[in-house]
């Protein structure tokens, strides 16, 4: 991502990767943890390490600091979430084997017996290099996907053989280099405990835990010791101090900090120490002030509400209200409640989805300091101790006005019974923005048409015709701005088993010129949604509009604790004619008629003409 050395650098809370990004935007809030990672790296002891923290707390950035700033490069890097072609036993083993084979070929090490190129008749050249490439890449076509699936099935049937082979390769590589290999495993955090994908992945992690491997995991993985890989030393990534959050946000604002500086303590407070949540609050506040021209207190309320909806909204029957109430009362969560065999316990689920924010690791491992995510709390409780300033006064006024239950949620168990809390929650509706087409364009334009950002916007619709008009209208506007092409992907039109491969095959432009408009199938199945969730970071380089039916939205949000972190969610109003007037669309066309048109402008013209036809048809004119 292109960064501005002195200007505003907003994104959706992506990991910092490049030397430029780290030098501009990284706040050295965790020198001890970096020190521990460097110490681990430099030690010759063959010991694995779990690097664990909550979603958005900065684990991936820490690993970048280790590799980019500290120069501690991995000998072998596995990115299970981004690079594994299929989340199946065969897919994972095939991916690990492929990566290790690549390394052996580079180091000129003989590949031990086991799975062989001759076991892959689908690879015509029949050499290891081609097999490794196939096993570590997303299929580029449905035919390639079929070939890969056949190989994965064969690998799964011979998993023990492949495991022995991988182990032998790792030992051979170590022997050749004369020291323990440094292995980095990114993206394990995307696989929640107890899920089928995690069950497929776990045997590999057990193998890698026998070597000098650092595994990037979610904090909930630190609580279990069911598997061998979970019983290795742990390094916990705790939330930021508020002052560090303020420093981080100042860096993001660059020379434009003047109009935002005073609100930063409040944002830091409502972030709960989570840098991604802080950045999203700042971006949304900034948008509400700058583009929507809202007064300060309204803008702050808007930011809290939007970020809560994007990150934390759950179907109300899924809220573990007893646990949240207990944590709110006690200030800690018992480790036993988070630890569980198999699927996530309700407490672990609340931690995994950031409803609960864990504090610093305690001496007494049984009681972890914890609190409700501030976006779920009574605003007055959160703002009581904020410093005095005109900006703070405005935010406190807002908090006072919304004091009892700012978001329709209140877990103050001392005042209300569980039944009362549940009743209040059930009666409140989601506060997600319902926007007409013009408002939608206004809202997404800053991010979507930015030269430097690649954002993902999720739009839920009820009326397909309105969705189609909105899709064409946004695509027309994007084409006017020179974003080209606008690629439409209808996942519902693809056979069920081929949707993921079809989607990945269509994502070809990582330069940020294209905009992908992706229509989800009706009533998407959970396994497919979970696949998309785990693949979150694959979508980072792409500018995307996701469309889905409103009735599918709760299920998607429920299944996307990771992916929703990189999305802004809006609901499209049913009414077409109230917002999009024929003379406005005609004015777009009139303007285009004045121009000499290149292909993007022709595309814009076609899209606007279609919108105009739809609007006129609706009006009966």
């Amino acid at each position, binding site marked *: 991502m292109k960064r501005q050395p*002195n200007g505003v650098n907003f994104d959706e809370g992506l990991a910092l990767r490049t030397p430029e990004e780290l030098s501009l935007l990284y706040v050295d809030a965790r020198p001890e943890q970096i020190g521990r990672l460097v110490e681990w790296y430099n030690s010759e002891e063959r010991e694995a390490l779990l690097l664990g923290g909550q979603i958005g707390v900065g684990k991936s950035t820490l690993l970048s600091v280790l590799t980019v700033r500290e120069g501690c490069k991995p000998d072998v890097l596995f990115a299970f979430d981004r690079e594994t072609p299929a989340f199946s036993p065969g897919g994972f083993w095939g991916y690990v084997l492929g990566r290790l084979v690549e390394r052996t070929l580079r180091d000129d090490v003989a590949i031990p017996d086991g799975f062989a190129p001759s076991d892959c008749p689908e690879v015509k050249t029949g050499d290891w290099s081609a097999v490794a490439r196939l096993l570590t890449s997303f299929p580029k076509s449905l035919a390639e996907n079929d070939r890969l699936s056949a190989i994965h099935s064969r690998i799964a049937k011979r998993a023990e053989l492949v495991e022995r082979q991988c182990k032998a390769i790792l030992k051979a590589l170590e022997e050749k280099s004369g020291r323990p290999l440094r292995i980095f495993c990114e993206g394990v955090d995307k696989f929640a405990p107890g899920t089928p994908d995690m069950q497929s992945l776990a045997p590999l992690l057990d193998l890698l835990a026998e070597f000098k491997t650092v595994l990037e995991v979610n904090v909930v993985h630190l609580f279990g010791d069911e598997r061998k890989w979970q019983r290795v030393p742990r390094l916990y990534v705790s939330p930021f101090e508020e002052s560090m959050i303020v420093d981080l946000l100042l860096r993001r604002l660059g020379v434009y900090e003047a109009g935002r500086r005073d609100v930063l303590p409040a944002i830091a407070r409502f972030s709960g120490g989570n840098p991604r949540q802080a950045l999203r609050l700042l971006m949304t506040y900034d948008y509400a002030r700058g583009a929507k021209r809202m007064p300060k207190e309204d803008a702050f309320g808007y930011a809290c509400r939007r970020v809560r909806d994007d990150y934390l909204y759950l179907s109300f029957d899924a809220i573990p209200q007893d646990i949240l109430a207990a944590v709110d009362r006690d200030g800690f969560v018992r480790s036993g409640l988070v630890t569980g065999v198999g699927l996530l316990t309700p407490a672990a689920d609340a931690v995994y989805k950031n409803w609960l924010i864990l504090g610093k690791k305690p001496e007494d491992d049984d009681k972890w300091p914890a609190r409700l995510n501030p976006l779920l709390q009574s605003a007055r409780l959160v703002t009581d101790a904020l410093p005095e300033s005109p900006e703070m006064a405005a935010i406190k006024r807002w908090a006072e006005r919304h004091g009892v239950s700012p978001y329709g949620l209140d877990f103050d168990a001392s005042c209300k019974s569980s039944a009362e809390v549940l009743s209040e929650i059930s009666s409140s509706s989601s506060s997600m923005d319902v926007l007409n087409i013009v408002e939608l364009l206004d809202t997404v334009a800053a991010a979507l*048409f930015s030269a430097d950002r690649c954002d993902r916007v999720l739009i839920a619709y009820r009326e397909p015709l309105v969705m189609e008009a909105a899709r064409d209208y946004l695509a027309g506007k994007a084409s006017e701005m020179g974003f080209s092409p606008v690629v439409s992907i209808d996942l519902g039109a693809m056979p069920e088993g081929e949707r993921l491969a079809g989607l990945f095959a269509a994502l070809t432009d990582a330069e940020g010129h294209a905009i992908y408009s992706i229509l989800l199938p009706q009533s998407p199945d959970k396994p497919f949604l979970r696949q998309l969730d785990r693949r979150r970071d694959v979508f980072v380089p792409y500018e995307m509009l996701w469309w889905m039916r409103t009735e599918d939205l709760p299920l998607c949000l429920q299944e996307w604790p990771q992916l929703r972190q990189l999305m802004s969610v809006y609901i499209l109003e049913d009414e077409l004619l109230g917002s999009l007037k024929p003379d406005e669309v005609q004015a777009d066309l009139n303007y285009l008629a004045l121009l000499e048109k290149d292909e993007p402008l022709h595309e814009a013209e076609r899209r606007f003409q279609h919108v105009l036809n739809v609007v006129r048809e609706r009006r009966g004119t």
Partner: protein
Amino acid sequence: MSAERRRSHIWHAIIRSAFAPSDPGTQATWLTCFSQTIPKHVDNPVLEYPRQHGELLRGRVGCGSLDFTCEYEIQPDRAQFDFFLSSLPSPSWHSQYGIESKVFACGARELERYREPPCQDEVDDVLCGLISHPRSHLHLFMERPMREVRIGTGLHAPFLFLFQLRFQLCIDAARRQQEMDRLKRIFNLDWLARERAISPQTLFGL
């Protein structure tokens, strides 16, 4: 010819060649180039692509991080620029800057060509007065006065007004310098010798 008159000549030559698109097609091309470069030049931009209503061209531009938005309307005989600042107590409060081309003002006039050739420093001074530091200007106030932002010039030329607004909405000194350096490469002595028209694509570096 005095230095003052030489600079006046350069001033008007720059406006004529780059900021006075005459026919609707050229005006639309100019505004398209303008709009397409806003996200590259302005941090956290607010942008509404222009539309044509009859003879009127209407669009919106601003910088979210400066809490500033400008809605513009350009017609053959007049132009208006509505400024909206989030820092004002009410969103409905705003100010409007108007240009009425039919009303007399002591502005553009034909000047005889200079006898002594001007130097690049003189061109640079003119660009400074036109774009980066207009003599009369308006500052924005956020929590502190944003003295880097100097909105002015373009009294006779709405397109010049938009261009300098685009420049002023970026307060990053390094990028401003880059932009000025780019303009100095366009409006160089070689160009001045012939005073060729500058296409919108060249003006905006597209």
